[in-house]
């Protein structure tokens, strides 16, 4: 069993089809059709990943995403029929790690799910330092002094990617490839939104970041103490 996936979607045909595809790839699917019961189902099934339709009866996908994010850093992939800027940004800001636009191909969806579930299995003991942060890569934890900072796996991956090479400026496209696993050009807003979320957790003053720096016109880089 590769992992447990909770499918939150009100369309029975699509849910069933998602189940068939997920099962074929060795995942164990669970289903809930009503947004209002999504959180309860999430607590009950304790999945490794949530597939969440944005348009839901009862409670809309953005709300569901927020309430799941409030109690867990588990990967959330949104299924959206809307490509309009506002909807996508709203979804990402509510805490979704990634999104796929309907209609998507089965392979594309599986690839997105795999990337989000890919844990750093080759967990060699590795400790990184970034400013006053201590990052334990194998232990998946970030500490400031003795205080543990709670990051979602995606935010953690993003931070590790930047902190490993503080001398390098990462373009948004490179980060999409390294962290999100996109092999083709994709939506760079993913990067912008998640850098903001990461900053709000690790920076002393997210308005004036000192750890994750913006390089105008290029991308982002971690603070380099060797300078």
């Amino acid at each position: 069993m590769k992992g447990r996936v909770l499918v939150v979607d009100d369309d029975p045909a699509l849910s069933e089809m998602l189940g068939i595809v997920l099962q074929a790839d060795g995942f164990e699917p669970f289903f809930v059709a009503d947004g209002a019961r999504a959180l309860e189902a999430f607590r009950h099934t304790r999945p490794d990943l949530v597939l969440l339709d944005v348009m839901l009866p009862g409670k809309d996908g953005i709300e569901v995403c927020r309430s799941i994010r409030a109690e867990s850093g588990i990967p959330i992939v949104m299924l959206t029929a809307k490509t309009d800027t506002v909807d996508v940004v709203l979804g990402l800001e509510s805490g979704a790690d990634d999104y796929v636009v309907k209609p998507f191909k089965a392979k594309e969806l599986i690839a997105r799910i795999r990337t989000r579930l890919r844990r750093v299995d080759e967990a060699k003991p590795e400790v990184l330092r970034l400013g006053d942060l201590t990052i334990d890569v194998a232990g998946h934890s970030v500490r400031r002094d003795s205080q543990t900072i709670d990051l979602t796996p995606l935010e953690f991956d993003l931070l590790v990617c930047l902190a490993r090479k503080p001398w390098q400026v990462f373009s948004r496209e490179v980060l999409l490839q390294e962290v999100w696993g996109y092999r083709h050009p994709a939506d760079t807003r993913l990067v912008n939104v998640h850098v903001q979320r990461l900053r709000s957790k690790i920076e002393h003053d997210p308005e004036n970041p000192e750890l994750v720096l913006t390089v105008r016109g290029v991308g982002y880089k971690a603070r380099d103490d060797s300078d």
Partner: protein
Amino acid sequence: MFSALTRRWRRSLAFRVVATTLLAGTALVGVSLGFLLVRVTNGLVDANTSRSIAEANVGLASAQQVVLQASESGPPPAGEGLADSIMNSLVSGIEQGADFEILLLDGSAPSGTELPERGTNLVEVSSVPPDLRSQVQSEGREVWTYTTIEYVDQPSQPGLVVGALLTIGTDTAYEVYYLFPYGQLQGTLDLVRSTAWITGVLLVGLLGLLMSLIARHIVLPVRQAARTAELLRAGHLEQRLPVRGEDDLAALASAFNDMAGSLQTQIRQLEDLSRLQQRFVSDVSHELRTPLTTIRMASDVLYERREEIPPGLRRTSELLNDQLDRFELLLVDLLEISRFDAGAAQLETEPVDLRDVARDAVAAARPLAQSRGSRIVEMLGDRPCMADCDRRRIERIVRNLLSNAIEHGEGKAIQVRVAANTTSAAISVRDFGRGLDDEDLEHVFDRFWRADPSRARNLGGTGLGLSIAMEDTRLHGGRLAVWGRPGEGALFRLTLPRVAGQEMSGPSALPLDPTRVSV
């Protein structure tokens, strides 16, 4: 100064009205006062002249009497005594206190005795014009003219001179000249003239003031209407004009308000319709996409495992898969077009080097070009061609133009050029394929239009690509132009303003007709 005045003349209605009134008023007042002055002056001068001549005649008659009496008693009189008694008699016809001078000059023939001359108040003899003297000598009776009276010890002044010949003997005579200065008359005339001036200036001034008040009264509401119309244009649809009274301006204001009200209603209706349309597009989008996703995934599952399917059904699964791709593209393009139609498309502009856009689009199109045997030649120049634009949309336009060129390029080379001038930047895509005739050129941007209906769409284009490209270009305030000739290929040229929202002036940075390029 002059240019400032002409500008005000052009721009201010009130200024024009006041200035015109002032000019016309000045002319009118000038003409009427001038006429009045001439009449008054002539009347006064005429009366004065006839009185003076009458007075002179009385004096002359009594002097003639003196001469007659003197000659009865002896030989032709002469000498100082005669001159003095003539002088005394000359003033007799003139009322007491009148201002006048007399000159008694020797008018004898050259053969006659010389007579002593007399005069009052040191008047110069030159006060009498020589013409008048010769007239007096030849005609004998009294003659008059206007002259300038010159004094020995006072400034000269205008006046009337009346002259006559006073015969003493057979060849001796006196020329008598009465000189009446106009001193008092001049004072009266000066007073009349200055009064006329003051009246004129006051009249014109009052007229100007009155007109500017009237102009303000009319122009202010007109200006307010113009301001309100400007606000309405800027989208403040609730703006109205105040309606005061029941006059013409009030009628203008209420008609204006009615117009604004009806405009507001219509715009609201259109907005509602547009919102409804957007909502509908969004709903259709969602409703269509969900079942399509299921079908898509089902087809994927079948396609992945087509080896397990009996060969007869295998092809079916392949067709299903291919056509789903096409269906998806069509759906995406249709939704995009509806978004344009609903006015819901929005630009996210940033400064972009069009050469980068061209490079990316060419890189994406290269595999397709290679499969068709076309070579894409980039002619991008070595200077950045920056323009404010929505990169995603511009790249989509260029990709569309490229795939169009590949589809119709018959495997020949495709040229991509980028250039910029001061106000615009341009990209052109040229193919050397079957080309376009005049009718093609007219319809090439029409939705679902095909150059040759008998030919299948090999590349699976939706028939909406160029329409979307045109809409994207319009959204940027740019131009998308096409050139083509049968057998010589086609050229599409996209021109964008360098600064978003700014007008493009002059020609595009790239030529449209490639056959006319000198290079």
